[in-house]
């Protein structure tokens, strides 16, 4: 028998306070005041005055590194970090070792996620065998496996060959899949280290021009239009990319787009100190780009925020910029960055946050229906996937104190607003009082 939780005085989507009763995996009651009389013995009452309740967050873009780089993250550590960040589902990217390009590997990832029990893990399948960009991976086998893969991506690499991209877009229609493209024209970015512009010219790091992202997005939206397929653009980072997606949506093309928390707040000025914690792909861009992606997220051009959580070993960040790995962790800071850049600035409401961090990513990943549905509204009868946030809290980020196994957070030492107080996965608390509930795995 699972624990019953009574959340007192919580503000669903930041609205008026209410009492919520979570019982048997679902939201059973939402009322102004729920009397404890008549509730099951052992009901846990959480005094949630001032806390905002959101549907459990869904990350469409997480690198869990297992199998292959368990020294940097495991499915257990990464999903614990996800729960601590308010997530109840993550999509695990395919660029593991071995690559998640067969039914066997995606089922392994899916099973390890289920065993860990912190969040629902939905493996992303590779588009091409070994991410090599040459031959389609067995997309159908992954779709029909126990992992029920619907999102396919060679993330980390661009599906550059236009014919391969076209075939992938067409092929996944058979099972309502989506191709999530890492938009990076490879020839224009050979050896690229950071955004190409004023800062790269000065610090002497090879440039990664905005056009290398925009050219691929432009091609892909036209391909998607031509074959009538669904396209998702990963981590778009430039003002021009926002314009292209806005144009494509205006034409009725079935495209969705994501932005990462770091592209909402950090700029290429940070490369001046040559600290590889700020080395990421796509690179940090200019303030004008940051302004444009914020605007695009607010007006719905950009559908979702996804973390691109990318743990790396210390030695791959404690070195020369050019020798360092691309990527930064993000699961435990994403919601705070969105609060700081979008909510506290008045650009978005908490309901909008729920849309871009839960509803939309669940819909894009096609995990918004069925027994383990995610991204559902906070209504009676819906699965009890929730996160409680204290928006008034302020915390100083310390990589060593995070749940992720790696310390490459770009926000170390930053004060960020908001704190995840509790996370519930189908009525089970995975986080309480801001700390992971360590019995989760055992209690599965």
């Amino acid at each position, binding site marked *: 028998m699972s624990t019953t939780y009574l959340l007192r005085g919580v503000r669903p989507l930041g609205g008026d306070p209410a009492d919520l009763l979570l019982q048997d995996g679902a939201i059973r009651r939402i009322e102004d005041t729920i009397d404890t009389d008549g509730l099951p013995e052992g009901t846990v009452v959480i005094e949630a005055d001032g806390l905002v309740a959101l549907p459990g967050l869904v990350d469409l873009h997480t690198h869990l590194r297992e199998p292959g780089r368990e020294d940097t993250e495991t499915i257990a550590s990464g999903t614990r970090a996800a729960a601590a960040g308010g997530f109840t589902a993550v999509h695990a990217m395919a660029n593991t070792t071995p690559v998640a390009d067969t039914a066997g590997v995606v089922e392994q990832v899916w099973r390890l996620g289920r065993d860990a029990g912190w969040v629902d893990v939905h493996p992303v399948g590779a588009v091409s065998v070994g991410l090599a960009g040459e031959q389609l991976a067995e997309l159908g086998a992954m779709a029909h496996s126990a992992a029920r893969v619907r999102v396919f991506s060679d993330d980390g690499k661009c599906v550059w060959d236009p014919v391969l991209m076209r075939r992938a877009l067409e092929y996944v229609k058979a099972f309502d899949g989506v191709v999530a493209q890492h938009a990076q024209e490879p020839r224009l970015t050979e050896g690229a280290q950071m955004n190409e512009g004023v800062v790269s010219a000065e610090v002497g790091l090879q440039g990664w*021009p905005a056009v290398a992202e925009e050219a691929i997005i432009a091609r892909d939206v036209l391909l998607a239009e031509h074959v009538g397929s669904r396209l998702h653009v990963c981590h778009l980072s430039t003002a021009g990319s926002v314009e292209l997606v806005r144009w494509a949506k205006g034409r009725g093309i079935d495209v969705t787009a994501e932005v990462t928390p770091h592209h909402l707040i950090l700029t290429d000025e940070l490369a001046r100190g*040559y600290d590889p914690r700020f080395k990421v792909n796509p690179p940090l861009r200019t303030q004008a780009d940051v302004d444009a992606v914020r605007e695009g997220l607010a007006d719905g051009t950009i559908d979702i925020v996804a973390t691109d959580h990318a743990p790396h070993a210390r030695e791959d960040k*404690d070195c020369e910029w050019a020798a360092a790995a691309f990527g930064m962790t993000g699961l435990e800071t994403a919601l705070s960055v969105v609060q700081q850049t979008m909510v506290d600035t008045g650009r978005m409401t908490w309901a909008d946050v729920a849309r871009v961090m839960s509803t939309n990513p669940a819909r894009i990943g096609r995990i918004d229906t069925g027994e383990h549905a995610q991204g559902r509204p906070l209504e009676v009868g819906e699965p009890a996937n929730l996160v409680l946030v204290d928006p008034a809290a302020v915390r100083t980020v310390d990589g060593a104190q995070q749940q992720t196994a790696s310390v490459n957070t770009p926000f170390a030492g930053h004060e960020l607003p908001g704190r995840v107080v509790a996370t519930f996965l189908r009525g089970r608390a995975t986080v309480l009082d801001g700390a992971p509930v360590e019995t989760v795995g055992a209690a599965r």
Partner: protein
Amino acid sequence: MKHLLSTADLSRADAVHVLDTAAEMAATQSREIKKLPTLRGRTVVNLFFEDSTRTRISFETAAKRLSADVINFSAKGSSVSKGESLKDTALTLQAMGADAVVCRHQASGAPHLLAHAGWLDAAVVNAGDGTHQHPTQALLDAFTLRRHLVGGAQGPTAGSGSDLAGLHVAVVGDVLHSRVARSNVSLLTTLGARVTLVAPPTLVPVGVEAWPCDVSYDFDGTLADGKPDAVMMLRVQRERMSGGGGFFPSPLEYSRAYGLDARRLATLPDHAIVMHPGPMNRGLEISADAADSPRAVIVEQVANGVAVRMAVLYLLLEGNR
């Protein structure tokens, strides 16, 4: 001044002070006994991750003339090719008690990391990092410019106390990949000179518009209209030109448009000097006529390099006392 990483970190007063100190060092170098006892007992490590015999022996000579102990640590390619990491190398040098580390590295920012990552207490001198900076080269160029073009009289201490106000310097060639160009743009403009970069558009970085200099694609026009007091030719690497990603169609086309040949040399004002950081590609960016002409101060730049590096090591190791 704890480290010398970039000329952009130098104020006008800092830069003039380095040049004046270099002038004093140069004056000692005409003596029969060139060695000074100044850095006796101090250890200078030349940490070279990239081949550069010229720069290394210049630093080695400078350190030895100041009586420092010199250790040459050639670690070519070891970090990026996943041998010993830069961090472990730095910790090793720290354990050995290096007082100054002169670092040449193919990765932009590597000396910055050595100076600021907390691995090492030594003073760090950037001896050229990737396509970022080569500050002692710019200082020796400024020193050479000052000796020839400022204050009238020639001699070791000519122009002492002065900056380069009013001079016009054309820097010609592969600006995109050049740490020499970056270092000179910031240093020469800090010292009051005007800089015009001359290159084909493919060899000018995107973002150059933020630099405090002019950019021209027309060498002849710059010579005719700008009347530069000095022309600094940059080395063009032959491997940059071939293939689909080539930066220019052919060496001949490059030479025709951007090479300093006898004809262009003749259009220079009488007092103008010709500079090159070396090593030269004779026949590509500079013809033999230009390289060997009386206007060329290329060999003197090498000699001045020793004096400037003596000054830098002296100021970093003794100037803060």
